[in-house]
C-alpha cells in the first residue's frame, strides 16, 4: 500500500455519501413526478370530509401514490385524534 492510499482510506468518502443521498432523492422525486395532478386536490377534499366529523390537522393526513408495472396504489393515512390522547390510524388501500 502506498503512502497516498493510506491517506485516502483514512478519510470517509463524502462522494459516496453524496451518491447515496442523491440516489434516494432522485428515485423519490421521479415517482412523485408521475403522480396524477389531481392528488393535491383529492388530498384537500378528503381532509375536508374528515374534518367535518373530526378535528384533524393538515399534518395528520398522509397520501402516498405508488406505481409499478401492474398496478397503481393510493395509500391514505389519517391520524385521528383521540380524547384519551391515543392515536388511531385508519388506512385505506385502493387500486
Amino acid at each position, binding site marked *: *500500500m*502506498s*503512502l*497516498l*492510499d493510506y491517506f*485516502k482510506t483514512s*478519510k*470517509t*468518502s*463524502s*462522494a*459516496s455519501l*453524496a*451518491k447515496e*443521498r*442523491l*440516489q434516494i*432523492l*432522485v428515485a423519490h*422525486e*421521479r415517482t412523485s*413526478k408521475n403522480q396524477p395532478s389531481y392528488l393535491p386536490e383529492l388530498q384537500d377534499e378528503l381532509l375536508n370530509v374528515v374534518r367535518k366529523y373530526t378535528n384533524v390537522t393538515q399534518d395528520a393526513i398522509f397520501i402516498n401514490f405508488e406505481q409499478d408495472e401492474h398496478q397503481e396504489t393510493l395509500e391514505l393515512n389519517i391520524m385521528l385524534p383521540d380524547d384519551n390522547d391515543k392515536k388511531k390510524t385508519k388506512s385505506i388501500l385502493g387500486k
Partner: protein
Amino acid sequence: MVTSGKGGVGKTTTSAAIAMGLAKKGHKTAVIDFDVGLRNLDLIMGCERRVVYDFINVVNGEATLHQALIKDKNCGQLYILPASQTRDKDALSKEGVEKVLNELSKTFKYIVCDSPAGIEKGAHLAMYFADDAFVVTNPEVSSVRDSDRMLGLMSSKSRRAEKNQEPIKEYLVLSRYSPERVKLGEMLSVEDVQEILSLHLLGVVPESKSVLNASNAGIPIILDEKSDAGQAYADIVARYLGEEKPHRFIETKRGFFGKLFGGK
C-alpha cells in the same frame, strides 16, 4: 438546446463553445440567448458592444432577424441572437419563439439555444422545441438533482413529448470535473453521475483556469486549443457530430508526487 436547471454550472460557456465548435466545423450555426432580462451570452461571445436589436425585438416585429443577428468576429459561419436586457421573461411567447426558430432553420444547420437557469418560462421555451439537449451538470448534489428535474420536464413538457414524437436526445456534459478530488473521494465520479441520471456521456470538461480567462476576454473557450477545457469541448462537438473520440480528462494526471506515492 443547452440546459441544466441549476445556475452557474456552465450553460452559457457550453453554448458558446458548442456553437463555435459546430461553426468551425463548417456548419452554419446560430446561437440564441433565452435568458431575457439577464443576458450574458453576448459577453461570453465577446460581441456585447455590437448588440443593437435582440430576440424580443424580432419576436415583436420591431426588427428583422437579419438586423438582430450578430456575425461572430472569429467565425463567419456563426451568428448570435442576443436576449433582451430590458424586457421581462413574459415578453417571450411560444408562438413568437416558434416563428423565429422556423425562420432561422431555413438558413442555419444548427440552432443552439442557451437556456436560462430555473424552470420558468425562458427555460421552458428554450427546451420546448428542442431536438437534442446538452445537459450541463457539475459533479455536485444540487446540480445533479436539478439536471434530473430538467430531464423529467423534457420528457413531459416538450413539443416532442406533447406530440408523442421521438423524445429529445439527451446528452450529458459533465463540467468542472476534478479527477484529483474524485480520486480522494471528495467528488462524485463520472460513473456516479451517469448512474444517477442514466444519460449518454458526451464529454467531461475538467475544472480549468482557462475558462475564466476565456470569459474575461470574451472568447469562447473552444478557441483556446491549448487549454484542457477547450480540447474537452472540441471533443464534445466532434462526438456530437458522430466522430469516435476516447474520453479524456477523467483520470488524474500522474505528476511527480503521483509517481512518488502512487505505487506501480
